[in-house]
């Protein structure tokens, strides 16, 4: 460990983290993972720190995961979600957040449909900001927990081959995973129908594969993404039925490979679309470990940012 502090006051995206930031988060998460498996799971590290979870977009697991992480660190937590908010009364993001900050909040965890919204906020307010997903830009805590889970399973990620399958165009998880895995020395290929792959993704040093079998034959890990129907304003592919046939990962396909691929999925799963139940629930799958690690990773980030106060 070369450093004990993050290089940045916010976690806005993997793009803005250094490799040693990532290693520091992993090391801290390891000790928190041990903590949350104890009979008494709570530590006092964030006592008297108030965290606001601002969710301008629907979320179940990320929000619960953050809230659990905050509570296990003894932070005071306030929650806000768009459906119950003043957003519908046309208040601006800045006004909404400033109102909340006037109530003396130290950290903001925000999910928002607009790319760059947390970066925008960080320029205008005085609180640590953690990006819990900003539109189709980044989802840094997801990428960190994904890489942390791969590392648990496979060890050092340098040289490992990771394929990201599915709707790359509308996925913040894909982008953050690409940045994170590249910083850790892994190779990345994206796979999906051409209309769901950004035209210039190859300029980021990422391989592109339209054929699912070939991608699976190549990779050590398959990170299978959900089809983001809610983010598609036009039709990028004709039907879920056809998608499932050509890009759905099923057991038969996996069994026909000459090796065992580690299966991941950031959730929520569309069973029978991008992944079949027998794959999601198989021994190859580390989907539930991802969820467990999510709490430890988020505890680590909250803890490290609070230390920068």
């Amino acid at each position: 460990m070369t450093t004990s502090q993050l290089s940045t006051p916010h976690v806005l995206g993997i793009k803005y983290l250094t490799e040693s930031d990532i290693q520091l988060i992993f090391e801290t998460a390891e000790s928190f993972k041990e903590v949350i498996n104890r009979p008494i799971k709570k530590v006092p590290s964030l006592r008297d720190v108030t965290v606001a979870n601002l969710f301008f977009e629907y979320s179940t697991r990320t929000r619960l995961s953050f809230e659990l992480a905050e509570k296990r660190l003894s932070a005071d937590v306030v929650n806000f979600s768009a459906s119950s908010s003043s957003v519908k009364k046309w208040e601006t993001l800045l006004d909404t957040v400033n109102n909340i900050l006037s109530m003396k909040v130290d950290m903001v965890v925000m999910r928002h449909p607009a790319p760059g919204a947390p970066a925008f906020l960080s320029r205008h307010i005085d609180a640590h900001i953690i990006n819990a997903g900003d539109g189709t830009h980044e989802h840094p805590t997801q990428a960190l927990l994904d890489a942390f889970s791969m590392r648990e399973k496979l060890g050092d990620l340098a040289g490992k081959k990771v394929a990201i399958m599915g709707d790359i165009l509308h996925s913040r998880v894909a982008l953050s995973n690409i940045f994170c895995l590249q910083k850790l020395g892994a190779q990345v290929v994206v796979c999906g129908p051409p209309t769901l792959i950004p035209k210039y993704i190859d300029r980021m040093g990422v391989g592109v594969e339209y054929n699912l079998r070939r991608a699976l034959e190549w990779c050590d890990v398959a990170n299978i993404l959900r089809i983001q129907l809610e983010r598609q304003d036009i039709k990028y592919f004709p039907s879920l039925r056809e998608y499932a046939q050509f890009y759905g990962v099923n057991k038969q396909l996996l069994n026909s490979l000459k090796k065992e691929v580690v299966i991941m999925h950031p959730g929520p799963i569309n069973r029978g679309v991008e992944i079949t139940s027998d794959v999601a629930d198989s021994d190859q799958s580390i989907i539930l470990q991802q969820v467990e690690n999510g709490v430890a990773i988020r505890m680590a980030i909250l803890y490290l940012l609070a230390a920068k106060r």
Partner: protein
Amino acid sequence: MLLIKNAKILSPGTPHHGKKRDLSIDRKGRIQSIRAKLDEKRSKVLDVRGAYVSPGWMDVGVQVGDPGFEHREDLQSVAAAAAAGGFTALAPQPNTPPPIHSKSEVRYLRDGLRDSLIDLYPLGAVSQSCEGGDITEIYDMHRAGAIAFTDGQQSIQDGGLMMRALQYVKAIDGIVINAPHDESIAGRGQIHEGQMSTALGMKGLPALAEELMLQRDLYLLAYTDSRLHVANVSTAGAVALIREAKRKGLRVTASVPAMNLALTEEVLEGFDTNYKVLPPLREKSDLLALRRGIQDGTLDFVSSNHTPLEGEAKKLEFPYADFGALGLQTLFPLVNTHLGDRFKAEDWVRLLAFRPREVFGLAVPEIREKEMANLTIFSTEAEWTFEAQAIRSKSPNTPFLGQSFRGKVLGVVNKGQSVLF
């Protein structure tokens, strides 16, 4: 009485072109005398110490909020911003509520700045309300003073409308202006489609959206044998298409926004909404092609693409912010700072005074004795910093606050009035 001392006169075709002179302007705004040395008592003296005097500059395609969006910009404020940017003539876009789509709106604009030093040349809409449907009363607007026809910021999507507009203006030897932007390709794009849009997870505006429609417009131009001005050229492919069309003898002219000559998509790294503009800031290869296009005459002039927006329209999450930035006051300093070394002072006169007027058949003012003074005084060397209090627009949406520039406008004179800085 105004006496401008030690000015290098740039007015090709006149006796004092290229020479260092003193120049006196009488109370009515007429150039009284131009001599190597003038000593005038009771004059206001401006010693410009070797700065240039050019025929007044013209900007085509400025967005004015008047009528309808006066809180963004009204005629008085756009006139002040234009003068501060070195312009004595403006051609405003028709995109106002109500739009400039009939004789009465054209007259409103034409007469709106009668008392100011700015000459206003209205652009009339091609379609009713700039909605891309039925064609407007183009002849009537032409008679009322509209110098060309365009749906302005609204690119003409329908090929049939574009074809009929090009045909219809032939009777008045008119010009249709279109900013090529195919909406079915552009979709909800936010910034140039490329490495930056990919890294920021932002929907992209492909160069294809511009080039595909430009191809269409050039085919329609060849078919109709009419006159077309391509506004907002921003891609290398578009420059190549226009170069080829000119070579083939089509009557096409083109202009490029100043920001696209100076900056690339890289400035968007920090999600600054003041860089969210249409056409979008593109890649290095586009920038270089645009610069070559300006130098070899493929692109006829530079435009400010001035688009005032209230702060609330910009202080938002990136996808929710409107497109556009102020441009009048920063056009010359911005471009001069970034590529002044390749420009001669004469190039500025060509790009800002001559070509915009020649393209639309307007007389270019001359700097000679007994002529009315219509001129811009500028230095290509003076350095300064653009601060908020210098903004003359009603709107604040410029990305350049706090930036240092090389090249400064020192004043403008027209219609017996002057603004000196």
